[in-house]
């Protein structure tokens, strides 16, 4: 089946000698599952019989109908059941489903931006904030499913029905309908010849393959039930699957077979949903023992070989991680792909403790999606619960209560003074506005959440998120924890702006604040000298205390404001998470007093504004560490870029590892490491202002790439193309 080489020694050696002919296995299989899910949902939703049901039963019935009628099939050469979609239907069905999808897309496009970045940009312009609701993005209790089987969970729910009130009884029975639907769906694959599907996921799994089979079927159904499949995460997969892996190894199941099973799962993960679901690797248990095990190693090896985007490998780093394992995680083939995402095991725990998770529980935390830190199986995390644009309150503070462009759909009580004597006063007013906007945002979010919970419940997912009250929806008290992240754009730009104001207005006194505001509103037209003067002020990302202090203070006070919006049912978690939307959102925002021109991106995550860091990654990290990241329990990523070829040299890779460990030891939460490659060099030639810090090493010394003459740059690129 593949080119494996098996060594009969047990343990790590065995894994090390397995070679997977993985790239050949990554077939381009089109399933077109979304068109089917949408079409079948719409069809079921419009049935009067379904509409007559209670919301929970309506959702459960729609879910059931989708699962029982969606075309299912087999992908040759794969051992896991669970492929479905329009492509498996007959010609007539395909025509209907595709037409419905095309129609849906047209309607959606007409209604406004369909891509999140465009949507955020529009909201930024129109409303200045966004109260939102995120589907999926979840890590349910897979361990429970594997241990008890869905029938075991059904038994628990049936028992709860005995003492439940009418409302909860209705919901509990809907949950049971949904779980039974997944069992019946599994039966459809049993009929296709997948014998394991007669047992799982109904019953507890009895082998590694059964466990992975159970996991896949249960996992992929969440996207169907949630009406969205973004960032469906796998939680502590290397932990809850490990007992099954270990038992199989002890029974003599060949390592090759186990590797094939993992490969089959990864192939499925890449065929459905998106590439933002996280698979946790490693960690530390309650006694302090390293949890990176042979299954963790196998998962990494499979993903390294397959070179696929999903899942996000969430590497949990701590001082006790084995060198071999750290080397595995920093394999050049992974780094070049932007994998893994590195998390500081203990710094992240610090953030969770600050959030209020009990000391005894915190070791069970998991990375969720691309940056969240949650308690898996017990938490619904609304990861884009709100979006806050930090430049807005700053503009209001600087422009006497008016934004630089346009108006706001609400009125605020804070009164901005006509003038300021210091940046401290500017910060106070900015945060006063922030407080008011956050109140509006979270109030709106609560209302949306309530409507969602009542009108669009998800009994399936709710059955798999525990710890609160059985028989309540995932949004209305089902899980033990309910959190909503307030993603915040533009904090770094605001800090840079205030540092620039301090330098230009209060220290050098070369311009008044009013002049700066007018210039920015005019997009610095005819004022390039003034703009460059603002640009010359200290910038975040260069370990400059003047601006780092401002960023730290703004961040801490803002974080406290967000947290203060929480109540005992719903906790609001601050984060400066932008993904790549800092580009589109910045695209719709006017010029700002940090010297940013209209339409230029905002800073990404907690990193410097593009083009402003000039002192290498340790300085970028130092600036990010000036912010108290414990307060950012919504998660906080920092992107760093390393010179091409660095991870290919073992000695230099060790230095990167040291830098990563240091960042986490000093309180950083998450690092995205990007290995610069030829594409970046080419982009740097075309847009040097984006890469002042890009360093290359060639022929005996290091040089800033953008400072080289064009012919030298071209030559360098040629060498990289030839060499790498």
């Amino acid at each position: 089946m593949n080119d494996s080489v098996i060594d009969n020694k047990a343990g790590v050696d065995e894994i090390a000698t397995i070679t997977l002919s993985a790239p050949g296995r990554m077939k381009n299989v089109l399933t077109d599952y979304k068109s089917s899910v949408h079409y079948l949902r719409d069809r079921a939703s419009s049935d009067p019989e379904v509409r007559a049901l209670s919301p929970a039963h309506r959702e459960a019935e729609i879910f059931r109908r989708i699962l029982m009628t969606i075309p299912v099939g087999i992908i040759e050469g794969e051992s896991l059941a669970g492929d479905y979609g329009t492509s498996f239907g007959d010609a007539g069905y395909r025509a209907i489903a595709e037409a419905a999808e095309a129609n849906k897309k047209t309607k959606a496009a007409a209604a406004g931006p369909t891509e999140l970045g465009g949507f955020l940009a529009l909201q930024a312009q129109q409303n200045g904030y966004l109260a939102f609701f995120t589907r999926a993005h979840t890590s349910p209790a897979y361990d429970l499913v594997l241990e008890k089987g869905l029938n075991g969970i059904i038994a628990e729910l049936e028992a709860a029905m005995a003492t439940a009130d009418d409302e909860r009884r209705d919901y509990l029975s809907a949950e049971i309908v949904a779980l039974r639907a997944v069992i019946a769906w599994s039966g459809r694959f049993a009929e296709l010849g997948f014998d394991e599907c007669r047992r799982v996921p109904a019953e507890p799994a009895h082998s590694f393959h059964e466990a992975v089979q159970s996991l896949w079927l249960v996992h992929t159904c969440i996207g169907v039930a949630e009406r969205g499949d973004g960032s469906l995460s796998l939680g502590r997969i290397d932990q809850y699957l490990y007992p099954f892996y270990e038992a199989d190894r002890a029974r003599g199941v060949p390592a090759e077979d186990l590797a094939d099973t993992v490969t089959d799962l990864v192939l499925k993960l890449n065929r459905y949903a998106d590439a933002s679901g996280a698979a946790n690797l490693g960690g530390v248990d309650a006694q302090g023992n390293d949890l990176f095990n042979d299954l963790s190693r196998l998962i990494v090896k499979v993903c390294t070989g397959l070179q696929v985007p999903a899942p996000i490998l969430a590497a949990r780093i701590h001082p006790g991680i084995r060198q071999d394992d750290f080397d595995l995680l920093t394999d050049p083939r992974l780094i070049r792909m932007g994998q893994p995402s590195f998390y500081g095991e203990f710094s992240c725990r610090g953030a969770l403790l600050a959030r209020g998770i009990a000391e005894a529980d915190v070791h069970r935390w998991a990375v969720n999606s691309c940056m969240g830190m949650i308690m898996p199986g017990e938490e619904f995390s609304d990861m884009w619960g709100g979006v806050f644009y930090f430049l807005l309150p700053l503009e209001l503070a600087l422009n006497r209560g008016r934004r630089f462009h346009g108006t706001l759909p609400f009125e605020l009580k804070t009164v901005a003074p006509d003038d300021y004597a210091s940046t401290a006063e500017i910060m106070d007013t900015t945060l006063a506005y922030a407080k008011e906007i956050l109140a509006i945002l979270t109030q709106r979010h609560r209302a949306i959440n309530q409507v969602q919970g009542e009108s669009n419940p998800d009994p399936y997912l709710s059955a798999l998120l525990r710890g609160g009250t059985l028989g309540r929806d995932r949004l209305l008290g089902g899980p033990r924890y309910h959190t909503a992240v307030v993603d915040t754009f533009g904090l770094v730009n605001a800090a840079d702006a205030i540092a620039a104001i301090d330098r230009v207005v209060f220290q050098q006194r070369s311009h008044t604040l009013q002049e700066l505001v007018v210039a920015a509103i005019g997009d610095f037209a005819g004022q390039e000298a003034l703009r460059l003067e603002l640009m010359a002020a200290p910038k975040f990302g260069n370990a400059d205390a003047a601006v780092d202090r401002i960023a730290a203070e703004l961040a801490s006070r803002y974080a406290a404001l967000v947290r203060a919006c929480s109540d005992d049912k719903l906790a609001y978690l601050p984060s400066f998470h932008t993904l790549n939307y800092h580009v589109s959102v910045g695209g719709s925002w006017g010029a700002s007093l940090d010297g940013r021109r209209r339409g230029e991106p905002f800073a990404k995550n907690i990193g410097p504004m593009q083009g402003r860091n000039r002192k290498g990654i340790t300085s970028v990290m130092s600036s990010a560490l000036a912010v108290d990241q414990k307060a950012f329990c919504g998660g906080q990523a920092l992107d760093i870029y390393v010179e091409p070829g660095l991870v290919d040299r073992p000695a230099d890779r060790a230095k990167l590892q040291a830098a990563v460990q240091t960042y986490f030891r000093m309180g950083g939460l998450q690092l995205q490491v990007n290995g610069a490659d030829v594409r970046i060099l080419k982009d740097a030639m075309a847009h040097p202002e984006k890469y002042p810090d890009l360093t290359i090493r060639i022929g005996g010394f290091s040089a800033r790439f953008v400072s080289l003459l064009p012919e030298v740059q071209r030559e360098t690129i040629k060498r990289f193309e030839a060499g790498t």
Partner: protein
Amino acid sequence: MQGMVFDIQKFSIHDGPGIRTTVFLKGCPLRCQWCHNPESLKRKPQLSFAPEKCIRCGWCFANCPQQAHVLINDEHVLLRDACVGCGKCAEKCYSGANTLIGRKMSVDAVVSEVLADTAFYESSGGGMTLSGGEPMSQFQFTRLLLQEAKRHGLHTCLETSGFAPTERFHQIRDLVDIFLFDYKESDPAKHREFTGVAQEIILRNLAELDRLGSRIILRCPIVPGYNDRPSHLREIANHANRLPNIFEVHVMPYHPLGKSKSAGIGQEYLIDESRFPGQADENNWIGTVQGMTRVPVRRG
């Protein structure tokens, strides 16, 4: 006391073990024809002029005490002969057209900047590297920097051409954990031709440091058409074999990246950049030297 510094580079990973901060001191007694830091040669501050960045704000035209900045036919011209490197034009040049290379810094100012990355040194076995230019030509400053670094428990490296009075090496030897010692050309006549100085004192200092037990990495730039000769490669290996405290050899394939910097400071560039070493050449040099010595040979 103050010294003339032209750069402080953080996250240096090629100037000694671990993560380091490299302090580049201005001024060098050599004039290597292939120098990739031409702005490091003269002690005095120099203006780097990039007219394409000028936004015509007019400040330097009005404020240069030497009136060295002029507008001729709408072109911003720097009258280099009139420029004394005072840096006034760079003070308020926010476009980056005028940048002054080289500034006076106190020992405390330098070391406090170096100390900012202490956590990274600790985790990686890194520290401070002094380079340049030739740090030994600002000897007092170099010595004080090393002393202060040691007072803070930092690991120290010194990158040097070796061209300085032997007595000076004696004085700072105990403050340096690793010498990154250049070995540029083995033939005496060629050495003077390519670097502008005689090699004897360099070889004597190398031998002396080795005799006294200093740890040495031999750094060997290989420049096509100049020293890429089998006889020179053999001499590199011979030194590594003869001197037991040379624990690593770094072969640095020459690359004409210094050209960009030369243009900025108005210096003519000597090397013919069409002689660009290929990957095969580099592998060949490294392989050749490694074949003649047991000391590890790496690409620098």
